[in-house]
């Protein structure tokens, strides 16, 4: 069985700049080291090379992609390449007129984040009073006839309001609602104690989402994503390393996932030096965790190894220091005790520690 590996989706991280300071931001802690952004011409070339490699879906993300003044030009280029273009955005800063220009340029869909349904709680998590404006953006998106996904990141402070989130998605006539639990990497790992829910909180929210999924089928697609910390089996992170996704960071690094450049010992290459095609097919970093030969036990002989591909390499590294270990989220991992211990802490009554907001001041080695 030889499967020709080709990417389907390009995740274009146009910038790490963002007006929001969300406490669970998935950008790397040292994002300021990647501030030398690719220019318009480089992104134009990257889009063409990605399409030639097999990419059909384009996620324009960041940071906040709207801070790039060339966004319209990039969307137009993507449409000419027949890519399906999703704008993944906080909605800040966006005007109705600019959204109309993006639509006219060929934008296919918008995924808008909100942090909560309670304005004060939402603004506290985002570190920015953006909630009211986001609702305007949602309405403009529908007015322009653009498919709208509402994305809410869940954690212990907002899990009790999942029903209200579903009601909001209904009233905004969203096409899709992503109720995605925080995954504890990047800034979220720093804030884990303040954010990690209990199993009871999760079970309640999951049931509400499942009921709504049945009720709204065909109208609103409802996606509920468990946190790895409670899933017992690891997720198929990025559908497997270097299998279906290409991520290009703001400064041009080509990555299998958006945090891969936080793993030590891997030499990721840059679109400024080589083509996407060469990097995808020949870079040693892309081969590092492809297939099964890198797998340790218990993954190597596990019947799920072709389902979850060994889970998340970044989670393995950031929790255990070993990127090639079994994802600790797996109950079979020798390091699973780390996850159990975090869950026990979440279940203990305690005062919540102060939140660490995403920002330039946190220096990490």
């Amino acid at each position, binding site marked *: 069985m030889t499967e*020709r590996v*080709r990417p*389907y*989706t390009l995740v274009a991280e146009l910038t790490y700049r963002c007006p929001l300071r969300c406490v669970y931001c998935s950008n790397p802690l040292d994002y300021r080291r990647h501030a030398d952004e690719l220019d318009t011409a480089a992104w134009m070339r990257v889009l063409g090379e990605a399409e030639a490699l*097999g990419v*059909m*879906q384009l*996620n324009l993300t960041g940071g906040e992609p709207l801070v790039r003044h060339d966004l319209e030009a990039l969307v137009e280029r993507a449409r000419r390449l*027949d890519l*399906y273009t*999703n704008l993944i955005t906080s909605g800040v800063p966006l005007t109705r007129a600019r959204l109309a220009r993006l639509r006219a340029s060929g934008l*296919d*869909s918008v*995924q808008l984040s909100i942090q909560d349904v309670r304005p004060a709680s939402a603004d506290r998590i985002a570190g920015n009073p953006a909630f009211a404006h986001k609702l305007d953006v949602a309405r403009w998106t529908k007015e322009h*006839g653009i*498919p709208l*996904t509402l994305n809410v990141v869940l954690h212990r402070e907002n899990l009790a309001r999942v029903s209200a989130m579903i009601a909001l998605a209904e009233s905004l006539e969203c*096409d*899709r609602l992503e109720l995605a639990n925080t995954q504890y990497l990047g800034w979220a790992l720093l804030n884990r104690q303040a954010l990690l829910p209990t199993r009871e909180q999760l079970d309640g929210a999951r049931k509400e989402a499942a009921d709504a999924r*049945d009720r709204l*089928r*065909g*109208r*609103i*697609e409802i996606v509920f994503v468990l946190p790895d910390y409670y899933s017992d089996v690891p997720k198929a992170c990025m559908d497997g390393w270097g299998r279906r996704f290409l991520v290009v960071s703001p400064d041009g690094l080509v990555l299998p996932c958006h945090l891969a450049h936080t793993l030590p010992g891997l030499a990721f290459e840059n679109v400024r030096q080589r083509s996407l095609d060469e990097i995808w097919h020949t870079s040693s970093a892309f081969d590092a965790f492809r297939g099964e030969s890198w797998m340790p036990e218990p993954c190597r002989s596990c019947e799920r190894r072709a389902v979850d591909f060994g889970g998340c390499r970044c989670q393995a590294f950031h929790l255990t220091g070993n990127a090639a270990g079994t994802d600790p989220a797996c109950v079979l991992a020798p390091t699973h005790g780390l996850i159990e211990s975090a869950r026990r802490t979440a279940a203990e009554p305690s005062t919540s520690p102060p939140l660490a907001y995403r920002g330039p001041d946190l220096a990490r080695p």
Partner: protein
Amino acid sequence: MSRSVISFESRPRLAAKARVRLDRQTGRYVLLYPERGLELNSTAAEIVKLCTGEYSVDDIIARLIATRVGVRADVERDVVDFLDRLGARGLLDTT
């Protein structure tokens, strides 16, 4: 689970959020929609091309039967199943 919502008289139209394109790597058609893609086999591609709001499900079945050897009941079932799956994903407007 709900039963089929597609009737033989309905005239399915592909939802505005969905787009069909050729996958140059495989030579097959794919249906693209927000953050997803659905690879279409040749029958599915034919059905999707007829989802313009102009043809009834009956018309679509008749067109497919005219171009292939097969039992009518099988074609009917394939068409209705496929349209149901599209509908459940919010990819059809039916009038």
